[in-house]
């Protein structure tokens, strides 16, 4: 049955990603979901043994393997750190860049089907974790990583990496959605920094009225910000295991998106692919994007204007969702699992985490990292202080098998909201709930 889950998820995810280019077409996500469900019900080809999910063995007496494989989403695959690890332990890390988070999910899904997986992989929080864990190939990190590290991780980070009450992957390079703003423009025009979604809409209009430029936009991974607004409205795609997209809270966000893109025209409709560049060129006053983009944004903006970062807007509450990636371990030999454990623990060293934060924009995931001098240097920047302050609101976006489906449905929904003023929001949200319910029922049947 686990094989079926993998095939279902893989085909669904492949189709979804391939169809993302279809932008506003409603068939895109529907077809993807259907593909996943159909395959779940019908595919049983390509037999191979399933990974068993027996408890982790005691690796304390095991000699680590001399080489491990590591699939990374960072272009240089942390080559310096890998070399440092090899010098320290004698274990060679064969690292390969696997592209973005979606590419990584594809690759891992194919790897599960073909039983050809790395020892360690950087896995995005976006989707696929449930399927990977249910396949039996993704090892729960809580059984391998030392208690000291597990306990040192800030609790908010675990929520997005815990599935079926098990810590499945280790938080590593994590981020949060933030509201970036053109500080120079705000100061020159005496504009107040918004703190709620309603205020964002009002401020966007004020920017347009005063300066003529667009007020706000969402970055290219726009479903993430929509879902962040959902969590800040106290709701989620699944509440108590039931689809809950068709609610007043979600409808309110849809209406707000329509107001920005269509009614007020303070957000360029369906132009999210170049949102970051548009903001950095001073064409848009505010941008919802990840704190991990801070270094890039500063670089792109240069001396054109001063960049400010504000907390992600509240709707009815502050329940901030997490972004970025974690380190996952896959089933292999005890020797390789031991070496993989050592590698992950090496990467989670407080100083390395703090340096990573300083050089990128990711937040520090351990208490020990926040106590380093490097992290104190990181906090000298007032914008980073805001990011640090927002950490207290890191919330409860749980891992579910429908993460991929929801991501694509929300993307499709936003495309439609911005393109079609006549869209029947209730109907669309009900359709998404039906798709989620169908998928969950199919998935539960296969488990």
């Amino acid at each position: 049955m686990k094989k079926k889950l993998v095939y279902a998820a893989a085909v669904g995810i492949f189709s979804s990603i391939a169809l993302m280019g279809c932008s506003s077409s409603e068939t895109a996500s529907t077809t993807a979901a259907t593909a996943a469900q159909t395959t779940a019900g019908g595919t049983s080809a390509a037999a191979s043994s399933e990974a068993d999910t027996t408890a982790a063995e005691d690796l304390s007496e095991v000699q680590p393997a001399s080489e491990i494989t590591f699939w990374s989403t960072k272009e240089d695959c942390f080559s310096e750190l890998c070399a440092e690890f090899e010098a320290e332990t004698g274990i060679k890390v064969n690292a390969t860049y696997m592209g973005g988070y979606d590419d990584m999910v594809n690759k891992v899904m194919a790897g599960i089907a073909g039983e050809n997986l790395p020892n360690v992989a950087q896995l995005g929080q976006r989707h696929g974790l449930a399927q990977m864990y249910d396949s039996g190939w993704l090892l729960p990190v809580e059984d391998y990583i030392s208690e000291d590290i597990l306990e040192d991780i800030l609790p908010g980070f675990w929520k997005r990496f815990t599935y079926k009450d098990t810590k499945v992957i280790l938080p590593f390079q994590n981020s949060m959605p933030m509201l970036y703003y053109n500080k120079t423009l705000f100061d020159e025009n005496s504009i107040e920094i918004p703190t709620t979604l309603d205020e964002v809409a009002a401020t966007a209009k004020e920017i347009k009225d005063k300066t003529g430029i667009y007020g706000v936009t969402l970055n290219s991974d726009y479903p993430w910000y929509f879902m962040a607004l959902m969590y800040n409205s106290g709701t989620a795609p699944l509440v108590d295991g039931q689809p809950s997209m068709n609610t007043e809270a979600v409808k309110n966000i849809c209406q707000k998106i329509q107001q920005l893109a269509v009614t007020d025209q303070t957000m360029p409709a369906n132009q999210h692919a170049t949102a970051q560049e548009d903001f950095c060129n001073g064409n848009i006053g505010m941008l919802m994007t990840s704190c991990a983009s801070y270094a890039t944004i500063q670089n792109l903006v240069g001396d054109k204007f001063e960049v400010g970062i504000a907390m992600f807007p509240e709707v009815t509450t502050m329940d901030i969702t997490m972004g970025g990636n974690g380190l996952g371990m896959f089933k292999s030999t005890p020797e390789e699992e031991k070496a993989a454990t050592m590698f992950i623990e090496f990467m989670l060293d407080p100083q390395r985490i703090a340096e990573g934060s300083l050089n990128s924009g990711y937040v520090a995931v351990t208490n020990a990292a926040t106590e380093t001098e490097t992290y104190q240097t990181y906090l000298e920047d007032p914008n980073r202080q805001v990011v640090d302050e927002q950490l207290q609101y890191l919330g409860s976006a749980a891992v579910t098998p429908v993460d991929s489906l929801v991501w694509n449905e929300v993307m499709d929904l936003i495309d439609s909201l911005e393109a079609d003023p006549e869209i029947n929001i209730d109907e669309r949200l009900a359709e998404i709930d039906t798709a989620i319910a169908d998928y969950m029922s199919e998935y539960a049947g296969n488990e």
Partner: protein
Amino acid sequence: MKKKFTWKVLVRHLVLIACAAVILFPFLWMFFASFKEESEVFVEDFHLLPETWRFQNYLDAWNAAPFGSFYINSIKAALISVVCQTCFCSMAAYAFAKIEFAGKRLLFSLMLAMMILPEEAAIIPNYLLAQKLGLVNTSFGIAMTTLVSVFNIFLLRQTFMSIPNDLIQSARLDGCSMLQVFRHVAVPNAKGSMATVALLSFLTSWNNYMWPYMVTDQNQYRTLQIGLKYLIKPDAGPQWPMIMAASTIILLPVMLLFVFLQKYFVQGMLTSGIK
């Protein structure tokens, strides 16, 4: 003889120039953006030409990933695809066009029905097959899914159907075997379409991203399209001038190929009756 000027000709030419401009614009934008500063790519006061020409983008793009080996791998995979497609598609197409055998229509319909199947649905079975055959991280593995194309079989079948049966029967009467008729009569009469198939198969293989990505997990075996991914940071977004520079480098052989084979391409499409 000099053509007489008429308003009709002028309007026709203006429309054609406008259409050509629409088609050419993205390529020109890509080319000029490849020389721009990152901050100059998306600016409010749009200008096509860069303010300062930054040739360094090409060097940066080339050094951002092992594009040299990506280039060689793409060429290898494309050549395997071209050779296999022209060979296998033409033989299959000839059989469907000129040889009578039981179940021909059903087989042809089934083959056409395969066009409906999305490529993504076959990725896992294909991957398992590649793994069992030991083709993961090989050029043949990368080319594996582009060895035959239903569309190209259909295109060549249409061309072969236009060859008169009398010509084939004459060759048979002169003592040619079936393979000799195919080699000496059918193929020379379908040169244009064969060139079209070669070009299309080259393009398909050259532009292929998902399958080469799935079937390779080491840098030294990867292709150019995967290389573009190295210029997009998951949390920081794309580096546009470098992406445009890399895209220009990648597009160059395709454009050259199209320029040289354009005549055959158009001819092939016309003789196959597909427009």
